[in-house]
């Protein structure tokens, strides 16, 4: 509608313009891809399970509907207890990272920003590592602690970077990014140190560094999903502020946006979405960088379209990457993401006509 009302001449940009005017079509296509990747992700693995059986078990367990098929108890256990929580966890974390990435890119007015650039993800990983080192044995508290520490770590590092690097206004973006790099390095060093002193917990902390979904379970998903989905929805609600902030602090403020307030809220939400994911999966790169990039190329820069579609694409991408990771022989998905994501990103950079300004 937004473009349609004003855009009689779409010929100039052909297909791209047609797609751009129809974010709903893009959203629908992405949703179908998402559903297919659920069925594939749950069905494929060391034990292959057919799509009929997969859909049958999921429908029976979720809606109580039988579709006239039989399956073994083993299949049901594999589908319901092992693979489905893992696939859903990948999807939730993927959308959280993608939406957080889109938000960071908007807030920092920089296409190179992602949940890593301000040290946010590293801060979350360090927080989670510290939580692992604290000797608490009760399962529920342990999960709560993990998320609380990861969020605190993420927020604290984002805050420190913003304080030291200036808010990024008035040409200070380069300084902000360099500050993020430096703080991120300190956090990575601290994480290594945590590994060094961790003793028996080494394996778990090491997996935070590699980024993997082997630790996914219903119990963890139930804690993380509401945090991530809630944060993403709240970021989407603030889409227009994000659009306004693209013009820079002064202009946004002249358009009636309370810049400090809005930026603080959006930063906290993006940190929360990142941290709740990192607490389960550890550091997974490139989702938050590549997804918003691609989505923006297809539907344009308006946050109202970029955020929701990034959420769907991020979910599909990370679940697909995790499927690849499992099929190759249980490689950490963070490794797969980096191996596939980085070259793809380079390919994108080569193709884009427009220049990038820091």
């Amino acid at each position, binding site marked *: 509608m*937004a*473009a349609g*009302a*004003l*855009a009689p*001449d779409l010929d*100039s*940009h052909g297909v791209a*313009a047609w797609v751009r005017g129809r974010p709903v079509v893009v959203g629908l296509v992405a949703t179908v891809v998402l559903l297919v990747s659920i069925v594939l992700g749950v069905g494929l693995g060391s034990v292959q399970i057919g799509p009929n059986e997969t859909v049958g078990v999921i429908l029976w367990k979720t809606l109580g509907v039988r579709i006239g098929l039989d399956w073994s108890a083993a299949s049901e256990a594999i589908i319901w207890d092992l693979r489905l929580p893992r696939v859903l966890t990948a999807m939730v974390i993927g959308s959280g990272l993608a939406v957080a990435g889109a938000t960071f*890119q908007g807030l920092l*007015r*920089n*296409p190179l920003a992602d949940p890593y650039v301000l040290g946010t993800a590293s801060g979350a990983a360090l927080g989670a590592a510290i939580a692992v080192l604290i000797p608490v044995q009760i399962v529920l508290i342990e999960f709560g602690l993990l998320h609380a520490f990861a969020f605190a770590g993420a927020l604290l590092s984002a805050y420190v970077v913003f304080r030291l690097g200036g808010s990024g206004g008035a040409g200070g973006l380069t300084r902000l990014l360099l500050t993020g790099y430096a703080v991120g390095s300190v956090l990575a060093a601290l994480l290594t140190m945590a590994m060094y002193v961790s003793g028996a917990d080494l394996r778990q902390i090491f997996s935070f560094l590699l980024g993997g979904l082997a630790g996914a379970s219903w119990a963890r998903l139930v804690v993380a999903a509401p945090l991530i989905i809630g944060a993403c929805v709240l970021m989407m*609600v603030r889409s*227009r502020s994000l*659009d*306004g902030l*693209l*013009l*820079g602090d*002064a*202009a946004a*403020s*002249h*358009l*009636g*946006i*309370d810049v400090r307030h809005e930026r603080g809220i959006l930063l906290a939400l993006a940190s929360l979405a990142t941290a709740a994911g990192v607490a389960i999966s550890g550091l997974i790169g490139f989702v938050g960088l590549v997804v918003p990039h691609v989505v*923006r190329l297809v539907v*344009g*820069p*308006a946050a*109202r379209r970029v955020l929701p579609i990034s959420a769907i694409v991020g979910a599909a991408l990370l679940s697909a990457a995790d499927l690849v990771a499992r099929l190759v022989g249980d490689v950490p998905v963070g490794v797969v993401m980096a191996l596939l994501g980085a070259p793809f990103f380079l390919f994108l950079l080569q193709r884009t006509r*427009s220049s990038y*300004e820091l």
Partner: protein
Amino acid sequence: MTAVAPILAAHDVTVAYGDRRVVDAATFEVGGGERVALVGPNGAGKSSLLRAMTGVLRPSSGSVHLCGAPIDTVERSAVARTIAVVPELIQLPFEMPVHEVVALGRLPHEPPFTGLRTTDHLAVAGAMDRVGIAHLAHRDVRELSMGERQLVFIAVAVAQSAQILVLDEPTAHLDIRHQVDVMELLVDLNQRDGTTVVAVLHDLALAAHFFPRVAVLSGGRIVADGAPAATLGPEQIRSVFGVDPALVRLPVGAS
């Protein structure tokens, strides 16, 4: 000079960065429906005074009133519905079509969550028409020339449909023909729509020709304020700008 009750008023406003007083107890009132140019040499404090008067910079001392209320007590979005500001040139981080940038001018009017309504779309199309950039609607702002970009941000402010339009050097990147177009647009907005216009200008000839009131800022103080014939006389030009008045041919003799 202000016959009407001031819609925007700065009283004894001082803006200081550290020890340096950029604006020094300046008093500057703008009446509803006026068209005022603010001129002065580089570093005179014009931009700082504007920033204080639009509520984005808190003065060290003094007060700014918008429609009679202290501006820092007025909600940001309410200020934005009353004052539209054309800022200095903006760089955009992403490819962005012109009509979507102009639509950002509707931000203070949009109800939350619903997005742009029909009235907003009309205002956006109207603003692009009026500024003369309708043919650029689907172009990427970053691909435009400096002058065209300047026009886009003027259109953003027009779409904001505020009572007061504040411009900081709106003609800085424009060629002479576009400079005159923008000046005529400002006159038209002022006379036809009753929009109050406050513009910082470097070009004294444009100020003198298109503005019935010209205020001169020097060393952070308003040193002259009134009709251009009085405020842009040879002695002001010599003392304020430090140049030989013969170099500046102003159309003030005619008015």
